[in-house]
């Protein structure tokens, strides 16, 4: 049902073996993780020229710096073959060392800017393609060199040609995280209003929408985005337009929805007050989308890339839930079957992507923390047994699941009794023995709530051999657990 457009795959370019590719990918992943730890996780996107064959790129072994210099000379002398030269230049600029050489040449960028504003449409297209290649450069100095072109690129955002607009957008998106200077300049030149207008006018052109989403996401990830950029974005039409694209189009595929979802994530995670977005129905949208996605995943939908959308939508939902007033929860979430979807997502991704499963569990926690309604739904929709089965798994999933169960127990005495009937006590006897400290302490807390709820529960716990388990805790090295176990034994269990 939902496709992911996989036109641009770097793998094709090099023709390496599968194993080599895997190794490269793992290496890349390591680099990215380190970059994230350094708070420097930034990516650029390259829009491949669909006119060109992949073969061409491989066979045209990189022309090298010399060609760049000669091409620039040719272009500066206004020859008749401007278009051809430009095209050749754009190919040459695919090579990083050529990119470096290019920006070192005097007035090279100004040359491009001039061609960017030429009356010849083809020239304009090729010129922007050159700029796009430059913007994608791995060298730190190259992309900022495109600065002189930005005001023009912004103007062209409202132009008629889709391909052209896309290139402009991706170029802008690539260069804005490179330096603060560039970012400030772009903001001063009005990039946010320009993006808003572009998206408003081209809402039905999903390729452009995807590009706007990408560029906006780049801006939203910059350092002071919360103070400088986000208020502007929230005040504009961008947030409503982002929400309207959230549900993926079956024809076009997932990509635009993915970009917009990430933008929304950057918006919701940067502030603990999401009133603006809540009032525009962000949580309503995210919830219903999660219900559809959950259903799709549960039905075994093998659509590629679904998790790329599930992830940011989960995060939006999670953070919106944490700031949504409790009394509005029912209206904002709408469908109580969200709990089913979330449980389904946890189970579906448990083994393949445990981090994603953990995020889904986090959302479920935020949903149930202060709502009797959703806690009750977990019981009536028979989801508790499934939750209990998730308790053995580590990497943070079990603590979150146990929190959810604790949320339920905390609400009502009847819930405690029901939980006991569903087997929570025996599950606790196992979780009390786990290595993870937080699990053990939480288990004791939950046990307390259950035991206090009714004498039957306390008796049942004793019957299951819980006393000796707690006694063992009295020799525990950790004070918190000692105290809890002792308290439970003395105050509540000794009469059984």
């Amino acid at each position, binding site marked *: 049902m939902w496709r992911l457009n996989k036109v641009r795959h770097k793998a094709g370019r090099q023709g390496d073996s599968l194993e080599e590719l895997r190794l490269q990918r793992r290496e890349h992943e390591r680099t990215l993780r380190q970059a994230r730890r350094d708070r420097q996780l930034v990516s650029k996107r390259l829009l491949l020229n669909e006119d060109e064959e992949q073969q061409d790129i491989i066979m045209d072994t990189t022309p090298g710096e010399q060609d760049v210099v000669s091409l620039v000379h040719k272009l500066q002398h206004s020859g008749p073959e401007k278009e051809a030269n430009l095209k050749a230049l754009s190919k040459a600029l695919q090579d990083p060392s050529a990119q470096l050489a290019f920006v070192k040449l005097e007035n090279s960028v100004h040359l491009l800017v001039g061609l960017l504003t030429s009356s010849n449409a083809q020239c304009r297209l090729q010129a922007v393609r050159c700029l796009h290649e430059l913007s994608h450069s791995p060298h730190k100095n190259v992309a900022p060199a495109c600065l002189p072109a930005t005001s023009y690129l912004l103007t062209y955002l409202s132009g008629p040609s889709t391909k052209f607009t896309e290139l402009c957008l991706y170029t802008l998106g690539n260069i804005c995280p490179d330096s603060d200077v560039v970012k400030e300049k772009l903001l001063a030149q009005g990039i946010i209003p320009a993006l808003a207008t572009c998206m408003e006018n081209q809402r039905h052109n999903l390729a452009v929408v995807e590009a706007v989403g990408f560029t906006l996401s780049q801006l939203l990830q910059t350092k002071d985005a919360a103070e400088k950029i986000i208020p502007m974005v929230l005040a504009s039409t961008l947030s409503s337009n982002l929400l309207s694209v959230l549900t993926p189009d079956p024809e076009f595929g997932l990509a635009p929805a993915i970009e917009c979802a990430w933008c929304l994530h950057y918006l919701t995670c940067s502030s603990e007050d999401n009133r603006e977005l809540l009032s525009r129905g962000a949580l309503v949208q995210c919830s219903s989308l999660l219900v559809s996605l959950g259903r799709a995943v549960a039905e075994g939908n093998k659509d590629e890339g679904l998790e790329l959308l599930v992830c940011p939508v989960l995060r939006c939902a999670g953070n919106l*839930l944490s700031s949504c007033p409790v009394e509005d929860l029912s209206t904002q979430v709408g469908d109580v079957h969200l709990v089913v979807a979330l449980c389904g997502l946890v189970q579906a991704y448990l083994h393949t992507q445990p981090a994603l499963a953990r995020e889904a569990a*986090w959302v479920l926690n935020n949903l149930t923390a202060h709502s009797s309604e959703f806690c009750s739904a977990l019981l009536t929709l028979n989801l508790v047994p499934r939750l209990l089965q998730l308790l053995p798994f580590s990497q943070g999933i079990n603590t979150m699941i146990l929190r959810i169960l604790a949320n339920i127990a905390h609400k009502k005495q009847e819930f405690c009794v029901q939980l006991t009937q569903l087997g929570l006590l025996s599950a606790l006897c196992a979780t009390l023995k786990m290595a993870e400290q937080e699990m053990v302490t939480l288990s004791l807390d939950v046990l307390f709530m259950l035991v206090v709820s009714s004498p039957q529960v306390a008796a049942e716990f004793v019957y299951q051999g819980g006393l000796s388990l707690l*006694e063992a805790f009295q020799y525990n090295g950790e004070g918190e657990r*000692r105290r809890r176990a002792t308290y439970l034994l003395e105050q509540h269990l000794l009469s059984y």
Partner: protein
Amino acid sequence: MLQPDMFQLMTAGDVSVRSCHEESPTVASEKQQQRRQSESEEENPFSFSPQRFHLHRDHELFEDGDIKRHMYLQDLYVSEAEDKPTRSVSEVACHISGCSSVFRTLEEYEYHYNSLHRHVCCSCHRSLPSARLLDIHIQEWHDSLFTILAQREDMYQCLVEGCGQKFRTRKDRKDHLIRIHKYPPDFRFDKPKKDKSRETKTQQQKDATMEVVDDVCESEGVCEVMCNMLSDQPEHEESMETHVSEEEAAGMAKPTKDLPAAAQGSDSTSSAPAKPQYSYRVPPAVCFGHGSVRGFRGRRGRRK
């Protein structure tokens, strides 16, 4: 793996929202609140309350998803799961102080616990974490000779193996354990019993033995109740109390009520005179573990 305290961000709105919510509870949850609040007077250590977590962009939980996102942007995305199977099941750990064993399965853990930590006192069915502590427990709590000797000599051994020091009172031993062996002062040692005679006993027990380290008589309350269950004799309970109060009385001025008289009588009932002391270690059912084996070593003899 998540660290216990990783969720530190909480919305300010969350706190106020929570209190709003609690202002209009249903009847059932009101009762729930009351039940839990009444706990607080007795130093309820339980602190769970439902919480919503707002996660900032750089949160650890988001790392994997961010990486995938950027791999996708850089055209490195692959849909099939990477080769390493990522399912991991939580490990089981032995929580006994000083024992840091970790196990993959519950079975391994049970085996470990039953062989090393299940030293069961056959009088009170209390489980002690080591043979040595079981010995000391039996000696101090189920041996009337000990009580008598303790009035004249330093009988309370230091619990640390190899130290060898002995003390006149539990309190002295406790102080020693805290001062010299750096035991945490809140490590429960003796607890006040929860019953009718608690009020009077509490003070004494607290003064003398509260917050002494380690286990030996940590079980005192449980011990007595268990005995109660087993022997079905209310006086039995009293006799245990007696042991306590006598020892306390040694150091304190406060007398206990009528117990000294009862003590003599109950003493004989509690310790079946015909049986040698060490047989307390022999349970009605067969005992696995070191406890029962050691019960037959020479050391027991001197208790007679």
